[in-house]
Each structure stands twice: as C-alpha cells, then as structure tokens.
C-alpha cells in the first residue's frame, strides 16, 4: 500500500461522512465505514473491521462524553450490561480471527439488511410511556432488584423528571451478549441492538438507552481492539485517517442532529443500507465462490 496524499484524503473524507451519517442516524460510523473500506478502498475485510472497531472507540468517546455531560446515562446499568457486551466482543473478535473473509462479508450484509429494517420500523412509544408514568411503575426482576438498577432524568421535551425502574434482565443480557459478538466480529458499535435491548425489553427510556449505549460501546470495542491489536490486524496507517475522520464527522453530526428532521433522513438511510447490504452480499459471493453479481454503483 502506497501511503499517498490521495489515499489519506479520500479515506479521511469517507470516514468523516460515515461518522457524520452515523451520528445523524444515532448509530456509529461502523456500518458505513467498513463497506467503504472494503468496497471502495479494496482493503481486506479483517483490516477494515479492525480499523473500524478502533474508530468506534473514538466516536464513543466523542458522543459518549456529551451524553455523560447531560447526565442522561445510567453508569450502573452500563457497567452491568458491559459484563455481557465485553464477553460477546471477545467471542466475536476470536471468531473474526478464524472466519473466512467471505463469511464475514456475508454476515455483514445480513446485518445491514436487519439495520435497514430496524431503521424503517422504529417505533415512537416513548412519549406515551413517559406521559402515563409506565416507566416508574414497573416492577424490577430478581437481578435488577438486587443491583438496585433504576434512575431518573430530566426530559426536556416532556419538561418533567422521568423515573424508571429497570427490569427484563435475562432478555436484555442475552441481546447485550449478541451485540458484543456483532461488535467484535463486524467492527461496528452494536448500538442499535443495545438500545433496543434497553428500550424495548428493560423498561429504559429511549434517551437514557441511547446515552448509556454510547458509553458501553467504547468499553466493548476496546476488548475487540485489544485482541486485534495483539494479532497485528490494527494497521496504524489505516486506523489514523479512519479514527480521525469518524471523530470529526461524529462530533459535527452530534451538533446538527437535533436540528434536522429525522423521518426523511431515515428513509434515505434505509435505501443506502439496502444498497450497501447488496454490495457486501455481492462481495461475499465474489470472495467465496468467484460469482460476480452486477454492481449497482
């Protein structure tokens, strides 16, 4: 690989756009930057995944710190679920070391398809749950009761303090483990899974779920990064523009996020993710079986 100004600027720009879009969508840049590195820059899948997972730490630091600042994260809940996400990340990154690149590309394509579906079907139940006080009335389960997992935050939109009692630990823990595997295997943050685990199954308000997830992502990605680093998969010269670009992109994206209308954005991203899913699927067939599907790009 010749490290030219051309290569660096393009990779920096791609990572910046990925980080920006990721922040707008409320996910990390991983789901965009990995396909960009593999499809456009023709980097090996494993190098791309390793570089992406390090950049996920950078975006988690960027996004997570602003959420910590707003006090809408639940540090204890984050630590509790991190036991599962880090174990999952270790599982996923070990898998990434041994799986064929075409299998990883195929799994990535499937994940993109799921993400497109998840972005399309996002529900907006939170407002009703806040208004009715459902979050506060829930009964904790054995585990969350023992750990005293609960909390409250001030919701600016509803202009009231929202209390919530965490429950549904078994389901939440299972999804958190799965999110960890996804993160380690595919180099993404796995935020969508973590947020859905907390918001849909653990009675955690959306804003707290998002903030807490951002905080967890960095610790989860650190575990996969440690393993990839020791394996020599983290190529500094690839990581540098990717991490720098996503950090800048994510920071700008977080700034403008609240000023944009999200419904139109989600439709656009759904199409983009379906397109990337198709291209990664084609890449998997090409790497695994030398079959060439027509490119849409």
């Amino acid at each position, binding site marked *: *690989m010749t490290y030219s100004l051309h290569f660096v600027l393009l990779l920096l720009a791609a990572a910046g756009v990925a980080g920006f879009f990721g922040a707008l969508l409320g996910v990390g840049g991983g789901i965009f930057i990995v396909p960009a590195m593999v499809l456009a820059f023709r980097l090996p899948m494993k190098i791309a995944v390793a570089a992406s997972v390090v950049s996920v730490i950078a975006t988690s630091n960027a996004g997570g710190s602003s959420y910590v600042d707003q006090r809408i*994260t639940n*540090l204890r809940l984050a630590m509790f679920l991190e036991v599962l996400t880090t174990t999952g990340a270790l599982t996923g990154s070990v898998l990434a070391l041994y799986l064929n690149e075409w299998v990883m590309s195929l799994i990535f394509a499937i994940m993109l398809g799921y993400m497109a579906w998840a972005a399309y079907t996002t529900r907006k139940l939170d407002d009703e749950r806040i208004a009715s006080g459902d979050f506060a009335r829930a009964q904790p389960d054995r585990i969350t009761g*023992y750990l005293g997992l609960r909390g409250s935050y001030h919701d600016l939109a509803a202009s009231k303090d929202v209390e919530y009692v965490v429950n549904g630990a078994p389901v939440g823990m299972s999804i958190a483990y799965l999110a960890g595997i996804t993160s380690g295997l595919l180099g993404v943050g796995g935020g969508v899974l973590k947020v859905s685990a907390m918001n849909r199954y653990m009675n955690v308000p959306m804003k707290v779920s998002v903030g807490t997830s951002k905080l967890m992502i960095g610790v989860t990605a650190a575990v996969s990064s440690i393993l990839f680093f020791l394996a020599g998969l983290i190529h500094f010269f690839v990581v540098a*523009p990717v*991490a720098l670009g996503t950090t800048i992109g994510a920071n700008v994206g977080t700034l403008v996020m609240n000023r944009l209308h999200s419904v139109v954005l989600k439709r656009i991203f759904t199409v983009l993710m379906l397109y990337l899913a198709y291209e990664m699927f084609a890449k998997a067939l090409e790497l695994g079986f030398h079959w060439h599907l027509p490119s849409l790009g």
Partner: protein
Amino acid sequence: MPDRTSSLVTPPEPPDTEENVYVDVYRLLIAGMIVSSILFALGIVLSLLHPLYIPLSTRWVRSQYHVTTVVHGIMHGDPTAILLVATVLLILTPVARVVVSIVAFLVDHDYKFVVVTSIVFLVMVITVILGELGLT
C-alpha cells in the same frame, strides 16, 4: 431464603459521589479523544512529508511492537511510532474508564458494583492473555 422484598421497597440510595464519577469519566473520555486525535493528525502529516510504501500485513504491524523501537521512533518523529502510540492510547481510554469506575464505586462503598465492574476488567485481562497465548 434471601430477603428480596426489602430491596424492592427500599432501593439503595443514590450515592453522593455519583456526580464525581460522571465528572471523572467525562474528563477521561475528552482527554483520550483529544490527545489521540492530535497524535493521529501529527502522524499522518509526518508520514505524508516522507511518502513511503507500507506493507498491509499483520507481520509488519507486529514487527513494530518493541518498546525500544517505539521510544526511539518518538524521539526522532517517526510517524509509525506516533501512530502506534495514538492507537494504544485510544484503546486504553475505555480501559482506564473501567479502572476509574472501580475506584469510584469503592469510594462510594457500592461493593456490588465494584464486583460488576471488576468482572468487566477481568474480561479485558483475559483478552490480553488469550491474545498473547494464542498468537505468539
């Protein structure tokens, strides 16, 4: 049989020092992000001043893992060493966050969460051991 109802009726009081935990975590995340970003930018600029061919192999990457090489490289403004340090720093930021949290929970006398957070740290240690054992 453990008394479960008492923990339902009287949940643990939120500790007073929770605010401090948040402040510590916040500063740590910001510091890690800023310092590693500056080093990444510096490394990129330096490497572009003297363009070179870089092998895309894991063997080449791992051949850089020598403390003396890195220290020597930093002294002489070698971009490889600077980028390596930036990468390690970035990876260590969340690790440091976990360690800070263990200490903060200890200060709070919140021993349940000292245990929970220590398990997370243990997973990190196991990862290092597995990585070292399986890859050398």
